[in-house]
């Protein structure tokens, strides 16, 4: 670049630099084998969820009274359940619900938690006091019991599950983000920002938030499995997604009486949950390292 030039030139450079930052993040992620495995798992699940109507061998709702609890065969690759429905098709279709709920929960609790964590860490004082006491109170309840109570009051259904879980779930984010903000506040670049005359809101938006964002993203990836398991647990307990809508949790629950004669009903649903949970966990861990610009600079 020449010594003089106009603003456009440097903006272009900046944009190029940004994309190359994203590229660097990808390079760092790629080096981490587990993260790549996690990413593949997640992508497979997303693919299944998106295309389940086309890749399912059968209609997931079709009952076949005469073909109950059939073992896996060519026709029903993972067997049938107590109503004679195709387990594979129901798992595929359940992945849609699962990811949908998972994403909704993450967005719901994430946005509340990140926002409250941000302001409580940044402003401190009474704001912090109120938020943190609220966190303490909510965390003293057993999550699932609380969620069951809420679902009981508000009725069943996807959105109520999301609200029920999110109402406690955000506290984890708020805590993590708050402690990250507290450590960012100690960095001298924040002090330097005040020094050059930055107003508080600008310090928050330009200095603190961008540096806390990776933590938030990683949190979301890591909390995804928790959300999946919690929503499966609710379904398993009968307060989640309404039957006959296929959900992994209720499938495990439906098959648990036949664990010996027809293990395929519960176990494959369990495997699907495990597969997805592992995927997000690996990915989350990998993201943690690769989003940090200072790890392994080149």
């Amino acid at each position, binding site marked *: 670049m020449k010594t003089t030039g106009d603003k456009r030139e440097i903006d272009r*450079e900046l944009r190029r630099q940004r994309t190359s930052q994203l590229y660097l993040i990808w390079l760092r992620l790629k080096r981490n084998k587990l993260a790549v495995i996690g990413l593949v798992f997640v992508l497979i699940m997303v693919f299944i969820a998106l295309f389940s109507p086309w890749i399912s061998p059968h209609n997931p709702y079709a009952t076949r009274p005469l073909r109950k609890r059939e073992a896996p065969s060519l026709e029903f690759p993972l067997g049938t359940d107590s109503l004679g429905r195709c387990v594979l098709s129901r798992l595929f279709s359940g992945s849609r619900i699962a990811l949908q709920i998972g994403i909704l929960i993450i967005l719901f609790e994430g946005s509340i938690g990140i926002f409250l964590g941000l302001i409580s860490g940044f402003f401190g004082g009474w704001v912090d006091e109120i938020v943190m006491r609220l966190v303490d109170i909510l965390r003293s309840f057993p999550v699932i019991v609380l969620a069951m109570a809420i679902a009981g009051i508000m009725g069943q259904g996807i959105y109520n599950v999301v609200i029920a879980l999110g109402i406690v779930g955000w506290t984890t984010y708020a805590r993590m983000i708050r402690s990250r903000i507290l450590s960012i506040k100690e960095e001298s670049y924040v002090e330097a920002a005040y020094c*050059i*005359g930055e107003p508080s809101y600008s310090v928050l938006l330009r200095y603190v938030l961008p*540096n806390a964002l990776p933590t938030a993203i990683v949190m979301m990836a890591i909390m995804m499995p928790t959300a999946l398991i919690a929503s499966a647990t609710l379904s398993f307990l009968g307060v989640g997604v309404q039957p006959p809508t296929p959900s992994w949790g209720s499938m495990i629950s439906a098959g648990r009486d036949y664990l010996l004669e027809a293990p395929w009903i519960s176990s494959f649903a369990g495997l699907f949950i495990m597969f997805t949970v592992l995927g997000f966990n690996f990915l989350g861990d990998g993201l943690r390292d690769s989003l940090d610009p200072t790890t392994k600079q080149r």
Partner: protein
Amino acid sequence: MTDPLLEIVDLKKYFNSPKGKVKAVDGVDLNILKGETLGLVGESGCGKSTLVRATLRLIEPTDGKVFLRGENVLAFSRKRLVEARGQMGMVFQDPHSSLNPRMTVAEILRRPLKIHNLVQGKGQIYNRTVELLETMGLSAEHMIRYPHELSGGQKQRVGVARALAVEPRILLLDEPTSALDVSVQTKILKLLRNTMERLDLTYVFISHDINLIRTISDRIAVMYLGKIVEIGEVDEVFADPLHPYTQGLFKSVPRPDPEHNIRKPPLTGEVPSPIDPPAGCNFAPRCPQKIQQCEKEEPNLKSMGKDREVACWVATEKNV
């Protein structure tokens, strides 16, 4: 004598800690003269950083006044404070943590220009940014770098450029080279010296490297446990340190000279905690020259001739 650009009057900063009040800065009076480099030395924890932070109101002082060209900064509203910060710049010790890792060098330098509305128009801003970088021996190619893509010395030079961007009249430098290798230090020191001459700046330079302070400052202020114990022209203070602490401190400094040997440790014991500072003179528990009065009454800075002040009963007695 030139007039003071910045006048610090009885500045105090106490921190609350579970064990009691930490008197980090405990009544500091200091005049910073236009165009000088004032070296501030003292051992770790004596309150050097706290003093400059409180002066800039990066932390709110407990008590005192800071006059910037006659006006008390501590009484300023938020808005006026931002203006005042346009007159004072600060450079931080750790170059690795003093630049926002998510901003490029260009953005880092553009912010102060925008906030203080110093130059208008994108082209102008760009040119000014390049100019700032060139002042610090960097070039336009560094603009698109992120801090972690710079070496420690380069980062620190960006830090100085950022402080200069607001066009300050006074620069507070808190150990700006102590995280750097010596081979890189000279470059920054020389750049600072040149800039000072060109822009007619005033420096307050904190360092624990006493040889360095001796090389670069006009006046030196020695701090001990939250107080200034001696202040004066560098050559005079080094030639004839008056305060027993200054004497011990200077003798403790290893000198790059094989002939020189620190024979007997000149200072015994350790710096007491600033939580419960000793009554009377802070230095009394370690002072080889103390007299009875020392443990009862606290000595204040007293003038000892031209531009020389010292806070010690014995030293002021002798010279009267």
